């Protein structure tokens, strides 16, 4: 109980005492009046009125006189309380008027907030649309890039197949060429060996010619000696002289034949040497054949490298394709995240509806306040309005937010699976 209420209680107590005294006095007056029944010269009405006045006045005067100090103090307190109450009422009236005016001003305030939200949503949607346009361009480019990559993959596969086929074909050709080259080299080595043997044979004939020539010379000398001996023998050696002449002629012819054979052998030797030179040259050209074989080997390596490069290129194209598909996946994710705009729009639209509802409720309250004789009762209040929102929510997140702030059963599962196929 505050000070003001204590003072009021005290004043009320004193007044109650006075009322009780008044009642006692009136009761005494009643007794006196009932005991007075004899006639008198004074009119009864006057007697009664005077008696009543006196009897009522006297005790009251006595009481008030006896308590005039307390009454004075009580009246002072009542006066002070009245003044205080008047100030309180004035202040509350001022507050009430201020609130009433302020409540009426809630309309432009809430309307501004409503439009601010609408503007923010509009800007957000415009920017999101711009973002979607960009993503759309990216999407188109991505599709085109995907087509190019698909073509590259197909081209790469075809190229790889052609390369593999061509490499195999070239490999077969190279193998045949190598075999031919080996065969040719073998023939050349065989030819050179035969010529070398021939040259050796020819060289081996030279001493035989010398032997023949030497034999021819010795035969000639022998024939000369035989002729001398035949001349010395006279007629007996005449026949022998003929033989000796024949032998000398034979020797001359043998020498001549040996010389001729020697020349022919020399000629043959020169030809053999020429052939040897040619064979040597051919063998030297075999060195060029080795270079050719080296070239073939390098070509084979190059083809292998080319085949490997082709494979790597194809793998690279596959990697690009995989990377591109991953990019497309990210793009699809981004497209999904953009849908938050629609989710946010719906939530903000609900907030806008709530703002309008709040504005209308406050305006109705101010109207009711102005209505004469309003008893203070109203069909709706913020509590009922707030509770009604629970049935209006579309998203589980809205319900959860509401229950988290306003209190409620959060234990229940308010969410639904994101994907349900029936």
């Amino acid at each position: 109980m505050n000070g003001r209420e204590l003072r009021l209680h005290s004043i009320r107590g004193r007044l109650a005492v006075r009322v009780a005294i008044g009642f006692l006095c009136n009761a005494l007056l009643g007794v006196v009046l009932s005991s007075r029944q004899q006639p008198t010269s004074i009119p009864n009405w006057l007697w009664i009125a005077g008696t009543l006045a006196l009897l009522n006045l006297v005790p009251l005067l006595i009481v008030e006189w006896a308590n005039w100090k307390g009454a004075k103090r009580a009246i002072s307190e009542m006066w002070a309380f009245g003044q205080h109450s008047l100030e309180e009422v004035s202040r509350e009236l001022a507050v009430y008027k201020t609130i009433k005016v302020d409540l009426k001003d809630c309309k432009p305030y809430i309307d501004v907030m409503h439009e601010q939200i609408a503007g923010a949503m509009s800007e957000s949607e415009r920017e999101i649309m711009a973002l979607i346009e960009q993503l759309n361009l990216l999407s188109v480019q991505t599709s085109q890039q995907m087509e190019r990559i698909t073509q590259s993959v197909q081209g790469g596969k075809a190229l790889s197949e052609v390369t593999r086929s061509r490499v195999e074909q070239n490999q077969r050709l190279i193998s045949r060429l190598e075999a031919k080259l080996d065969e040719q080299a073998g023939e050349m080595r065989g030819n050179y060996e035969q010529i070398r043997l021939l040259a050796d044979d020819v060289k081996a004939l030279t001493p035989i010619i010398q032997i023949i020539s030497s034999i021819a010379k010795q035969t000639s000398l022998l024939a000369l000696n035989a002729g001398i001996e035949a001349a010395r023998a006279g007629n007996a050696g005449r026949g022998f002289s003929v033989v000796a002449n024949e032998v000398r002629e034979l020797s001359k012819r043998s020498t001549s034949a040996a010389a001729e054979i020697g020349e022919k052998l020399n000629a043959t030797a020169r030809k053999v040497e020429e052939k040897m030179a040619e064979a040597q040259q051919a063998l030297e050209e075999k060195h060029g054949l080795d270079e050719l074989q080296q070239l073939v080997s390098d070509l084979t390596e190059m083809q292998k490298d080319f085949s490997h490069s082709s494979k790597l290129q194809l793998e690279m194209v596959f990697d690009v394709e995989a990377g591109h598909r991953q990019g497309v996946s990210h793009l699809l994710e981004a497209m999904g995240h953009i849908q938050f705009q629609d989710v946010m729009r719906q939530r903000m639209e609900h907030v806008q509806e709530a703002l309008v509802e709040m504005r209308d409720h406050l305006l109705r309250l101010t109207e009711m306040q102005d209505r004469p004789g309003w008893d203070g009762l109203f069909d709706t209040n913020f509590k009922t309005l707030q509770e009604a929102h629970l049935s209006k929510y579309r998203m589980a997140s809205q319900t959860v937010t509401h229950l988290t702030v306003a209190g409620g059963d959060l234990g229940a599962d308010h969410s639904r699976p994101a994907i349900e196929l029936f």
Partner: protein
Amino acid sequence: MAKTILIVDDSVTMLMSVKNSLSLGGYQVETASNGQVAIDKLNAGLKPNLIVTDINMPVMGGLEMIGKVRALPGCRFFPILTLTTESEAAKRDEGRRLGATGWLVKPISGDNLLKVIKQLLPGA
């Protein structure tokens, strides 16, 4: 030939987002801003292989549209997916009763949307 999907949503951002996702998936995409526009397109001869529709739309909502689409000749069996923020079980059950094939809750990633659609349109 690419299969055709009709997207029905009053949100332009949703239409663009889902359209781009499905285009990336190789589908031909048609759009409608509400159920009535979708019905008009179907009556005009559009033959989609699948419909993706929002639920809460002006003029004609998704549930009403599903019921009317299923009553159209030749539109009884192709899949109709809802894509909505609506999580109320009663509406989902009503959608199922009216002939919806599935209930998808926004937001959904393009990958997941394509997976569901490929499941419903094999060979696409």
